[in-house]
């Protein structure tokens, strides 16, 4: 297997965004995943979201761990730096990168094995620290690259391709993220682009720890009857909380809604998240009730998707640490080296 660049040629009339780029400018190399893999749909949604937001692709840093999901950053944003790091350790690498330069947009891509098993600790701590990032888990309930073992998000009673029944409790990463203090938590389905793209857009604009759990069926090892992460199962059990429209500050707001039909959340950057409510008893701005709703609907056998929780004015790790507004990697000798006089004083104090 080797690197497959995509041809640069494209139709001259392809639409461009606010910074003059086409959708093609946000693409990466050709995917080497299985045909029909949910992960490729997520890559396409990321490309669409970044294009829609007119983000300069080189200002995005994409980081991943190990696994099928973690291979995907090669398949989008080809002009962005990427880092395929260590299994389960993407969150720490991303945290470090964010510490070095607070001005880039950080996109962490992980899988359910990477984040819920080997990397559960790092997942949890990156979220509770409030790292300003978009953390996407491409969740298929199974280990793909090692051919079909259950992962820690696999539902109780779900049946493996070879017939084994899972007897362990699943980890709900979205519920965990709500509990851990994430300031943006969503769940979606790789097969529902209309829902997924605006959620990724909103997460990318969010100035805090944003987490999206995306159910992404594995066509090779977990798409059979008896699996709870198959395309069919998801379509039958998907219960959307809301429909999201992301409006950038520069956009004119024209649509009108009846009172009570929508919730609007203005994010720190000025963007407005307009949520068309589909579930009356869910309030996405209340952490406790969002958690309650998640647990309640799970007990009813539903897979809740949509924007679960959002904090309009989040704070992030750099604010907590009190660091300077310029990126630390941009500081030079004058700002960093205290000089000989300070050293002479230190020496004197040690005599």
């Amino acid at each position: 297997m080797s690197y497959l660049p995509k041809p640069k040629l494209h139709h001259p009339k392809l639409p461009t965004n606010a910074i003059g780029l086409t959708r093609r400018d946000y693409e990466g190399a050709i995917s080497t995943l299985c045909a029909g893999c949910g992960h490729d749909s997520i890559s396409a949604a990321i490309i669409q979201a970044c294009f829609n937001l007119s983000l300069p692709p080189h200002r995005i840093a994409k980081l991943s761990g190990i696994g099928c999901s973690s291979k995907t950053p090669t398949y989008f944003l080809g002009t962005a730096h990427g880092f395929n790091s260590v299994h389960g350790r993407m969150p720490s690498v991303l945290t470090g990168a964010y510490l070095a330069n607070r001005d880039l947009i950080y996109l962490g891509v992980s899988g359910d094995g990477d984040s819920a098993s080997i990397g559960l600790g790092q997942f949890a701590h990156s979220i509770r620290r409030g790292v300003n990032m978009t953390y996407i888990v491409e969740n298929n309930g199974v280990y793909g690259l090692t051919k079909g073992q259950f992962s820690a998000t696999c539902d109780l009673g779900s049946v493996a391709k070879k017939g084994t029944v899972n007897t362990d409790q699943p980890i709900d990463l979205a519920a965990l993220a709500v509990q851990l203090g994430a300031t943006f938590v969503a769940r979606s389905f790789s097969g529902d682009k209309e829902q997924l793209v605006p959620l990724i857009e909103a997460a990318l604009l969010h100035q805090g720890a944003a987490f999206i759990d995306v159910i992404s069926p594995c066509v090779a090892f977990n798409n059979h009857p008896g699996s709870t992460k198959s395309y069919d199962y998801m379509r039958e059990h998907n219960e959307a909380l809301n429909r999201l429209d992301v409006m950038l500050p520069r956009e004119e707001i024209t649509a009108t809604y009846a009172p009570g039909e929508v919730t609007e959340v203005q994010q720190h950057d000025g963007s407005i998240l307009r949520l068309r409510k589909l579930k009356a008893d869910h309030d996405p701005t209340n952490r406790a009730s969002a958690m309650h709703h998640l647990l309640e609907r799970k007990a009813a056998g539903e897979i809740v998707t949509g924007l679960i929780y959002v904090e309009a004015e989040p704070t992030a790790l750099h604010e907590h640490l009190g660091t300077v507004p310029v990126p630390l990697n941009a500081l030079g000798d004058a700002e960093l080296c205290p000089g000989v006089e300070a050293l002479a004083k230190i020496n004197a104090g040690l005599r």
Partner: protein
Amino acid sequence: MPQPITATNDFVVKFANVNGSGSASANGLFAKSILRMGIPIASRNIFPSNIQGLPTWFEVRVSEAGHLGRRGGVDMMVAMNPQTWDRDVAEIEPGGYLFYDSTRPIPKSRFRDDITVIGCPLTEITNAAYSDPRQRQLFKNIVYLGALSALLDMDPEAVKGAIANQFKGKEKLIPANLAALEMGRAWAEENLACPIGLRLRRANAVGDRIFVDGNQAAALGAVYGGATVCAWYPITPSTSLAEAFEKYCSRLRRDPETGAKRYAIVQAEDELASIGMVVGAAWNGARAFTATSGPGISLMQEFLGLAYFAEIPAVVFDVQRAGPSTGMPTRTQQSDILSAAYASHGDTKHVMLLPEDPTECFAFGADAFDLADRLQTPVFVMLDLDIGMNDWLCEPFAWDPARRMDRGKVLDAAALDAVKTFGRYLDVDGDGIPYRTWPGTHLEKGAFFTRGTSRDRYARYTEDGAPYVDNMQRLLKKFRTTRSLVPRPVTTPAKEKARDGVIFYGSTSAAMREALAALEAQGIHLDALRIRAFPFHDDVAAFIAAHERVFVVEQNRDAQLRTLLVNEEEIDPAMLVPVLHYDGTPITARFIQAAIAERASAANVLPFRKATP
């Protein structure tokens, strides 16, 4: 009874205390008072993994000649801990002195008749003077300091000066401490034969040297070296390094107008996350480090390998201790040499710097960041508990005002526009070091996907064998380039032509120098080479080749540096005679002297190699 030891400005006093009894402060005052008299000392804490209750010792080596390693042996024991009484009494040199609290009678059988026993009713004195139990305990330490000052003929002004200095900012405490000091001094002068055979006399041998521990020095080196990101997990004996970095940064690294921090310190959830953050930050263009000890190095192995293959600068301060995790965390060793040099699965070799004292901890602490950036690879600064947590008398920290950070081969946007092709792992200059870019640099050029080895010179994905081998060979070339960039070894020739040599490194150095002087007095002459870095400079192999055999002195069981020498320089193992000390206490001059003298004299009787046809 043997003649009581008489010595001026050259002896060893050891304090046996109970952890958490407040003795550290009084013992520190004792050490600093002697320094204030212009007499060099070395002090070492030998302490348990415990907050309160277990035995702890404080050893002060007084040496006007400037020997700052552990000598071995104890001339005077200040026995304040009943739990360890018997072993403490047994450790005193024949003719030495025992100072103890004589409030409660101790049977004669628990003493020795070949030492001078000095009793002072410390508990009785403090019980009479204080009613608060905590005060009784704390001031008991100051009272014995007062008594010792009379017994050893210390300059009272030096002790008072040390007290005034210690309580700077808490001046209210000074009079009470001075009173307790005077109480002890007066009692000793009235009731004991003062001074004894061990005496202190004002000298002028300290000069402008500073008294500091290696962890603080290394942390300050990181500040001067431009580190902006520190990610760490608490582990003895490295914790105080990260804490010192925070202390210095909060003073020296704030925006003068806003007070905002020009640094970020994160206490991570474990060592895996610490090194992960360091790798992420360094990948993104910040100077980043972690401080840890052996168990942390074990946990970091996978990341260290990735950093080696992906060529990411990372600085790791390893303050070594006796292994393993449930080992002896408060005892010193040089036992991470191999696990650092070859950290990770796969074929890896890492750069190590081996400072001998806090002065070098500062210098190497700063240099490590230039080296890591220049070489795009992890760099280990190998301290140990003895250097890291003990105060050493050493040369003041020095800094060249003209020095600037060497960020190595980093292409900015303009440079990317100027170059024809950019290959992240392309050896453009023939030194094995490729060019890198930081994320976010250029709209179209210079981005690459970072991964371990499954890529070619242009960072394009491939699992083919030839690009893998090509990359591995380039990494070897880079490692050869490293030899000329790291600190050179320091050679000290013997006064007379020597057939044998000795190699040593790190915290062994001070004791080694004293041992060399003692061996020389015995007529055993050795050329000495102090190794300061791995990979080894060409001087090292040349030094070994120029001698019939070379002793390699280390503080570990398996002769780890010797193994590295054999492995990396293809030295005949028979040439390298290991001298190993690994009980967890710092190596002593007497140990080294005895170990080498024994082998050297045996060789003098029958040079085995020459007897063989």
